[in-house]
């Protein structure tokens, strides 16, 4: 186990460097000026040139290495070009906790809904309960979150007066966006659990357990579910990373000050530092989550531990 963590820790900087390089190349190729505003009066050309020089935007090589140096030596992700008063570190300091909170909440909800729906479906395949769970999963996967989000917004805060629109800071503000964000994950988890459970319930060890006279409840919880849960576990790593780094659409509809919006807006605004910053942070979280899942995997599945 220690060996695994050690190996991964050595690999991580290399993976991040590759991600950084590819992101840099793509971001540099974006059309338009990074310092010129979208609308309004353009400053004198000398001012534009001074701004580009200041951020190394006139020289890709010094930009690439300069930024890398700042990140490695000072954890300095640079200034935001669009939000001139903010550094990328400050932006992430304010928005990352929001996204992590919301993401964990969403993953929690997704786990509960998905596992219950999957188990129920697997216990009675073909029954109306299974059909209902499957339909729910189908809706969760195929309905875009902006439709679900808007519908929830119109139904609860606007229609019934429960909760508030575009609010953030109270526990109740989290419920609707977390639910919206969780549905696609819940649907996928339900599918994985159902498949795993059907397979497990049909396996030899479950038959043996039945023969030994264990109760159905014991069989389900002690024997079938842990095995059926393995694919879910490996899915949880990237899912948690994705959920915790925010969702552009959910953040937009519910007006949540999270990180997700920056993935899209930083590209549109050609806000290079912010763009690279969020990509690097996302990549780091993704690597960490995958490692965590691998560790958990070994812990849950004795076959891998050997």
């Amino acid at each position: 186990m220690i060996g695994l963590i050690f190996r991964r820790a050595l690999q991580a900087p290399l993976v991040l460097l590759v991600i950084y390089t590819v992101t840099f190349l793509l971001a540099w190729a974006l059309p338009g000026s990074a310092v010129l505003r979208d609308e309004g009066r353009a400053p004198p050309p000398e001012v534009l040139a001074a701004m580009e020089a200041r951020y190394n935007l006139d020289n890709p090589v010094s930009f690439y290495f300069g930024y890398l140096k700042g990140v490695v030596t000072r954890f300095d992700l640079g200034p935001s070009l669009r939000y001139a008063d903010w550094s990328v570190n400050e932006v992430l300091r304010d928005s990352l906790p929001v996204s992590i909170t919301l993401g964990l909440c969403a993953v929690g909800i997704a786990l509960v809904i998905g596992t219950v729906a999957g188990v129920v479906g697997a216990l009675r395949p073909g029954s109306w309960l299974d059909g209902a769970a499957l339909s729910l999963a189908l809706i969760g996967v195929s309905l875009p979150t902006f439709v679900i989000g808007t519908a929830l917004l119109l139904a609860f805060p606007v229609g019934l007066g429960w909760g508030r629109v575009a609010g953030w800071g109270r526990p109740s503000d989290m419920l609707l966006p977390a639910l919206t964000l969780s549905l696609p994950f819940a649907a996928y988890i339900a599918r994985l659990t159902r498949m795993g459970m059907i397979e497990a319930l049909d396996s030899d060890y479950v038959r043996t357990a039945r023969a030994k006279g264990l109760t159905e409840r014991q069989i389900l919880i002690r024997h079938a579910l842990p095995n059926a849960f393995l694919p879910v576990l490996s899915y949880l790593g990237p899912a948690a990373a994705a959920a915790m780094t925010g969702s552009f659409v959910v953040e937009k509809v519910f007006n949540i000050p999270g990180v997700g919006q920056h993935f899209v807006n930083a590209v549109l605004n050609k806000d290079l530092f912010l763009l690279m910053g969020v990509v690097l942070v996302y990549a780091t979280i993704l690597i960490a989550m995958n490692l965590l899942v691998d560790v958990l995997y070994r812990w849950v599945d004795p076959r891998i531990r050997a």
Partner: protein
Amino acid sequence: MALTLLLLAGVVVAALVGDRPRPPADFTYIDHQPPFTLDPQRATYEHDLRFVSALFDGLVRWDPYTYNIIPGFAKSWTVSDDGLRFTFHLRQDARWSNGEPLTSADVVYSWRRALMPDTAADYAESLFHVRGAQEFFERRSERLTEYAALPASQRTPETARALREETERDFGVNVGIRAPDPLTLEVELRAPAPYFLDLCAFPALYPVHPESVEACVALDPDTGRLEQTHEWTKPPRLISNGPYRLDEWRFKRDMRLVRNPHYWDADRVALETIEVRVVEDPATAVLAFQTGAADWLSDVLTGYLPEMLQAPENDVHGFTRFATYFWSFNCSPTLTGGRPNPFHDARVRRAFAMAVDKQTLVEKVRRVGEETADTLIPPGSIAGYDEDRSIGGPPFDPAAARALLAEAGWVDRDGDGTPEDASGEPFPVVDLLASTGSYHENVALALGAMFLEGLGVRTRIVQKETKAYRDDLRRRDYMMARGGWFGDYGDPTTFLDIHTTGDGNNLRGYSSARFDELLHHAAAEIDSAQRMALLEEAERLTTEEDLPVLPLWRYRQFPLYDAERVRGISRHPRAIQRLDYLSIAPEPDAKAEP
């Protein structure tokens, strides 16, 4: 798994408990964008300027309802007979939000800061009217270039410091801004600029607190430039001199302004606290307002605005702005790839303008009640300028448009409906360049139909993301493109400047010796009426003959608020809304309570 869930729940609760609730503010409003910067010298967007004008104060201000000049922290001023010398007398009780007195030296510092290319102040040019200012700006740029060319061994902190000291001496000697005593500021202009006071009222010239700004300035020995970070714009470090001080600023979330007790006119300010919330999604912003989350929404941007306006009882208010929506013609001789550009010929541009039925555009496409526009400058918006409203564009007249196109050599020679030139080459398909994400595509579709019907010319819509669109404009890689312009100050030049040859905002490649000459003469003209006459002549030239742009309508803004409750909102076309003039009407039924 139960353990994991418990852990998750713990994190969530911890994160939420950390968020302390605050008492509601006296007034809450919603903006679509967070401020990009609160640095007066760098603010350019309207929502930024609104913050700057709430947090900071200028020598003079605009009355928010008339846009006449009224005193700011200067209680009075005198102008010399030749219009070149302004002397401002500062109030004795003018203070920063930390209680320190505000002096004329602070203004000198701030204006020097605006004129340093290091600051990259967008509105540096507005100070170029001051004697020696433009030369100072250019000299500093040159010195920096020379410095950067020095061998690395000579680029030391000492040399950089010496350069900085030299620059500051240069400013003191050569630029016409002086502080003879702490309460007097003298400004000398290079030529009369009757609107100089208007520029002083513009937030870009409001002073910053030198000490707190300097704390974030570092000299880069590598480039010789002053590197500035912006930590000083965040509370509690932001020290300002205006009606409000900044109490809290959470990125893309909210801001809280609190009345500044040290402001010289604090007694007039009605609202004690103001909360500003940022809601980027237009529909969510409207829903938030409708569910009572705010007292004022700065602008409704939803696609269903026309339907909202038709609702019998709505709180949408339409304000006409000091701004014009237009489509630009690329006036360059050739297009990308060296193809000849038919729009280089002013007659072709005029013919296209005459094929456009603006009334239909406004009524059928926009449907939000804009006024059609024939001129770039809103008629009657500037005192002493074109008061008889004699300037007007060519009328909608497809037959005359076709005749004019024929005069320019484009006639339908083969009867297919499309005009051809003398060699039989058909009129090229016109690219209509628009940015994505707004109503411009609809306008382009309608324009395309009008050009086809009126002139037999085919069009193609080219939609690009804003950055790419702006890039195409700057490279003149387009034929016609959507555009617009907001006036900054109450003078025709705030609009007309964009047509001068080589101006950074002349995205049309328009160049007319006659126009440049008229503006040049106007800049040197002391007599105000004469000057206005020259500028009128210049606008007549671009509006009636040359048409580098095709004006379509005046921009309108659609704030949402309950007019019975929210008082003090200005309907003036130039208003960016001064928060210190707003108030909330007392609840009508408050007295009925026992």
